[in-house]
Every structure is written in structure tokens, then in C-alpha cells.
């Protein structure tokens, strides 16, 4: 989490900054080397020289880190684009499936309507020639009931 916060802050910095910091570190280091030749400035150079070197190291470190982060960021961006494409495909597939479901549901419903109409047409004929035993509806209902619900 902490590294991610640092990452967010650092990602806003320009690319040239860390090489520049390293360059400034080298300049300070060289400057301290030159100034150190003068006896009056020698004590200052003693402190400035390591400081310049530290600034150089910091610049190199951060430049390396920024380069790696840029590579990761490019991979993340690529993955985001792939995911966005996949999500579009997924929505499109769902939309197509929904259309198919509606069509097939209508076919099943229409078929049922036709069958019910046919039964109505011959209802009197069927009922006139056949009398049901009272056990028939009971057995039929027993078979139609969900055995998993009955077992509870």
C-alpha cells in the first residue's frame, strides 16, 4: 500500500527529472573536486563531495525504478485494453443470448397455446368417451410433485 502511494506521487514527475538529478550530483561532485584544490574551500569540499555523490546515487536509483515502473505501467495499460475488449464481447454475447431466449420462449409458448386450443376443440369428445378413475389425478400429482421438496 505504502509503495503504491509513493508510486502515485512519483508517476506525476517528468521523465527527465531523475537523470537530471544524477547529472546535478556529478556536477556537484566535480565542482567540489575543483574547489577542494583551493585551501580556503577545502573544508567545504570535504562535505560537498560526498553530498554530490549521494545525489548522483539517488538520481540513478530513482531513474532505474522509474524505468521499471514504466514497463509495468505499459503492461497494465495493455491488460486494461484487453479487459475492456473482453467486457464488450461479454455484453455483446449476453445481448445475443437474451434475444435467442426471447425467441425460443415465444416458440414454446405459442406451441402450448396451439396444443391447448386443440384440446378445447376435442374436449367434449374426449370427456364423453372416457371416465377417469379418482386414483388417476392423485397418482399424476404425486409424480408431478418435486421429490426433493416432498422429502424435506
Amino acid at each position, binding site marked *: 500500500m505504502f509503495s503504491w502511494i509513493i508510486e502515485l506521487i512519483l508517476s506525476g514527475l517528468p521523465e527527465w527529472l531523475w537523470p537530471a538529478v544524477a547529472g546535478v550530483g556529478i556536477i556537484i561532485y566535480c565542482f567540489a573536486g575543483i574547489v577542494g584544490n583551493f585551501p580556503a574551500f577545502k573544508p567545504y569540499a570535504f562535505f560537498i563531495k560526498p553530498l554530490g555523490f549521494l545525489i548522483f546515487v539517488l538520481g*540513478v536509483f530513482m531513474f*532505474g525504478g522509474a524505468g521499471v*515502473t514504466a514497463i509495468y505501467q505499459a503492461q497494465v495499460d495493455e491488460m486494461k485494453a484487453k479487459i475492456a475488449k473482453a467486457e464488450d*464481447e461479454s455484453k455483446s454475447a*449476453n445481448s445475443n443470448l437474451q434475444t435467442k431466449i426471447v425467441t425460443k420462449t415465444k416458440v414454446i409458448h405459442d*406451441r402450448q397455446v396451439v396444443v391447448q386450443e386443440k384440446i378445447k376443440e376435442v374436449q367434449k369428445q374426449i370427456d364423453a368417451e*372416457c371416465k377417469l378413475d379418482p386414483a388417476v389425478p392423485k397418482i399424476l400429482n404425486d409424480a408431478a410433485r418435486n421429490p426433493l421438496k416432498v422429502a424435506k
Partner: protein
Amino acid sequence: MKKIMALLFVIGLTGCSSTMVAPGPKQSWPDTPPDLKIACDDLALVDENTAQLSEVLKVVTANYSQYYACKDKVDNWLEWYATQQKIYNSVK
């Protein structure tokens, strides 16, 4: 002094192996068509006091339709799963 400088160089170069990785993007769970989220109804029952075959026939044929509607739902779930799995696996 030379050892310290060498050490600092090494520290400087470790920046190249920085592991500050941004959290990767997450793929959201695919949605399903609304009709697939509706459970299948129970089968219709016959009025147990009826003696008419036509009434039984109506219920039985309605139950056939019910079966095909539910079968279609299962088939659609299978199709949805296969399609979404294919899309999900394409993201690598």
C-alpha cells in the same frame, strides 16, 4: 571510501530491480441475461376431484411446455458459460 562508493553504486542500481508494481486491473464478473436468473416453476398439478380426461390432458401438456422452457434455460446457461469462459480465457 572506495568500498562505500561501490556500495552506493550497488544501491543506485537496485532501483532497476524495483518491485513497486501497480495493482493489476481486475476483470469484472460477467453479467447474465435477465431471463436466466428466473428459476424454473414447479410442475402444474391436476385438480384431484376432476374426472375429466381433458383437464388432465391440459395439465400434462402444460407440464411438457414447462419442461421444454426449463430445458431451454439449462441449455442457455451452458451456452452462456461456454461463451463467457472462452472470452475470459482470451484475456492473458
